């Protein structure tokens, strides 16, 4: 009987050896991640033509998905004013890369920002910058207001690798960041 169990024993010992060999690494704990793809923050800077103060609105969620909800600032604009608007995009997470606007501009052929006002007569936004293929990019725009009112301005950065055509299409591709800024237009 003893003899019979000998191979069993050696197989078992071999098995437990392998178990302990991998078990050694058990003390390893997960390390904080370095997510190079994270985008946490969109800042819109609106400089009025003529008189008036510069408006800055920020949408940010520095702890990423989940956890605390994103914070978003209201754009307080004046009626009948034309603004030169520019956007900066950043990763402001603890180990984040900071400002990545230039990266997006470099890869402009695969990206486009879409500016959508709701209600649609709240303001007009005209994209003024182009990518290397001379198609709209949308990091800069001219924003024109008319009457007083309130609503939202949703700015969406789309990743459209190989999908960007001659005409803009907000439905294509993948959303990288989407911010719906409350807008208040009054004197």
């Amino acid at each position, binding site marked *: *009987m003893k003899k*019979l169990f000998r*191979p*069993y024993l050696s*197989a*078992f010992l*071999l*098995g437990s050896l*392998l*178990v302990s060999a*991998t*078990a050694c*690494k*058990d003390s*390893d*704990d*997960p390390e*904080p*991640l370095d*997510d*190079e*793809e994270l*985008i*946490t*923050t*969109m800042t819109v800077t609106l400089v009025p033509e003529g008189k008036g103060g510069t408006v800055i609105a920020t*949408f*940010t*969620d520095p*702890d*990423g*998905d*989940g*956890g605390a*909800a*994103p914070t978003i600032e209201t754009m307080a604009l004046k009626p009948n004013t034309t603004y030169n608007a520019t956007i900066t995009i950043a990763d402001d997470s*603890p180990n984040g890369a900071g400002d990545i606007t230039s*990266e*997006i501009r470099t*890869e402009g052929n695969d990206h486009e920002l879409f500016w959508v006002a709701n209600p649609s007569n709240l303001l007009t936004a005209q994209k003024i910058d182009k990518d290397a293929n001379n198609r709209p990019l949308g990091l800069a725009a001219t924003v024109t207001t008319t009457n007083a009112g309130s609503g939202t301005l949703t700015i*969406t950065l*789309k*990743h459209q*690798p*190989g*999908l960007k055509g001659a005409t803009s*299409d907000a*439905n*294509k*591709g*993948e*959303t*990288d*960041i*989407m*911010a719906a800024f409350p807008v208040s237009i009054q004197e």
Partner: protein
Amino acid sequence: MTLALLSVYVPQVLAQMLPAPALIDISQDCGLTISGKTLDHDSREVLIGATVYIPELDRAAVSDAYGNYHFHQLCQGSYTLRVTYIGYQQEDFPVKLTGSTARNLQLHADAKTLSTVEITGAHLKEQAQSQQTLEGRELEQTRGLALAETLKGIAGVTTLQTGPNISKPVIHGLHSNRVLLLNNGVRQEGQQWGSEHAPEIDPFVASEMRVIKGAAGVRYGADAIGGVIIVEPKPLRSVPGISGDLHLLGSTNNRQLATSAMVEGNLSKVPPLSWRLQGTLKKAGNATTPDYYLENTGLREQNFSAALGYNKEQFGAEVFFSQFNTKLGILKESHIGNLTDLLGAIARGKPSNADNVAFTYDISRPYQDVHHNLLKAKGFWQLGNAGKLEFVYGWQRNMRQEYDIQRSSPTKPSLQLILNTHTTETVFAHKPLGRFTGSVGVSSIYQRNVYEYSAFLPYFTGTTVGAFAIERWQKDRLQLEAGLRYDYKHLLVKRLENDRELQKPEYDFNNVSGTIGAMYDVGYHLTFGLSATSAWRAPGANELFSQGVHHSAATYEEGDSTLTSEQAYNFELSTDYYGNLRLNGTLSLYHNYISNFIYLAPQAEPRLTTRGAYPAFKYTQADATLTGADLSLNYTFVPGLKLESKTSVLYARNLDTDDYLVYMPSNRFDNSLHYDFGKIGEGSKVTDAYVSVGGVYVAEQKRVPTKSEQDYAPAPAGYFLLTAKAGTTVHFGRQPVEISVTGNNLLNTVYREYLNKLRYFADEPGRLIMFHIRVPFNFSKS
């Protein structure tokens, strides 16, 4: 054969041991006949030349070349039919004769003479619970398909897909970590929780695939709530010589090319020593729907395995190693940002880039890269008269890398998971004690998961130990079985809260699984089975702690760290009508009650992220029932021409919300007509030719949740697919070559399947014709 001739066959030794002739008045008018077939109980093959002896009359008959036996001129009364056949246990069948009757006699293979055969061999009806086996030509016809697609031919088994190249088996509506896969005797441990994580098994390794439908926790351990899939290679070669086979496959549509080769041998100098080497290469490009190519849906696969065995009658050992490597492209369109993107894709009706996509074998992001290694060591010992002891150790290393579309173009994956698993199982099968047969066993699982690049699934270490006992009792036509199992699972999770603060929650789960079953052979080729089985499953680390966006589904999924185990109770009634000349079939009615069924429940508030709003889902528990029926029928019109018909119906309810469960397979009907040409002429070079034409109709899933919005698009319409198969064996001298052609979706139907996760984005592939050549070879000296 005449009776006069048969009497010659009465063994002398039996004749001498005969009791005195029974007291039956032989002068009365007796003109009754009893006849039937002698059959192998498990394979249902006829046994030619079996001796059937009636001690009461001292008369004997020998079954003829078709397995038929006859007794004529019998009187009314009670008799015993004693059947003997070499390699089988002698068995007595009592009969009460009141009129002429037909009775098939089934013999059980003698355990002693078959001791070197693995106990995992195919026993068609060993348990009361439904199980079905795919082997031989039926399995050969599926070569080239993924594992889950291979099993689709079994009633009650469907697939859960993510595009054309990722599929998982679904048994009676359950899948992923509720279906246990037993690969070569070792339970498969990959990241099987994911609906887009296909099993890491090369189907070319298998010579047999068996599906146990319904909870089967006792023998196979926790998690087997939906069922068990057993993938078995054929036993190693036991006769000296070298043999093997070579498969060559090619298909239209995704232009798949595949080859698989196997060589095995047995050493004439060391007869117990056998070996086998096997490898598979596979490559496919973009699949195409009837209207457009599906961008980035190619696949690559490279697998190999090696086995070495040393087997003697009293003991044996075997070492097996296999490696599975695959790269799977994922439909580019399906990688989306948020709910708005998803609704945009659904409204568009076809991928935005569909008209510009051409055929290519290239795979770009998003794709999956998966590597799975299995090392198995097995030993068995015949412990004299006590029984047989078997030990199996398995080590698996699963590495899964997922590459998403990224803004910059780095080379690193977006997610990497490495899971190491060690399993052991020790089973002792005792020799039959009176009318009892059975086995006891202990098993253990130790596994450890680590991640990189994404913390969707935490670090965890799981330890499971279990013990079970199963006994069967058989007398005459009745078989009873009962089994009990206890499992304990410890789970240690390590995770960083907010990517900073290390937390180490620990969990303990333990539970009991049981099974009781009864089988009754009514006679007249009819068997009834009744079974009640149970299984439980501890919540997985993903269900406890996953947190984040699920890209292709555009959902925000959140785990619940307070989940408890789910427990399934499965009841099944089955009838088997078999061994008949024309009509044969199996009907199975089942009811699976699962308490604390874990599922993703939609939350009222969407989750806002920087990429926009996502519908939020949280892992929640509710009681659920899955009730259904599987019907398989075949009807032989004339020898060679056969109609096969399969029907599956399932009703799945969430009892807490009083609503249907989401993502359950709809009703399906599969019918096909087969014709076997048999041998064409004497000494023909062409044999085993067959053709078959069939169609599967899949109904629209009307049983979808209505009380809570759980789906973004309505279930797609029902569809019908036409299929055809033809094949033959051509003999070039002594070398046979098997050739077959299979056609799927021959009408090039445009359709979408409810259980395909990519149905929101694109149609299913169109017509596909697959060519298969198999060349078996044998270098035995004979």
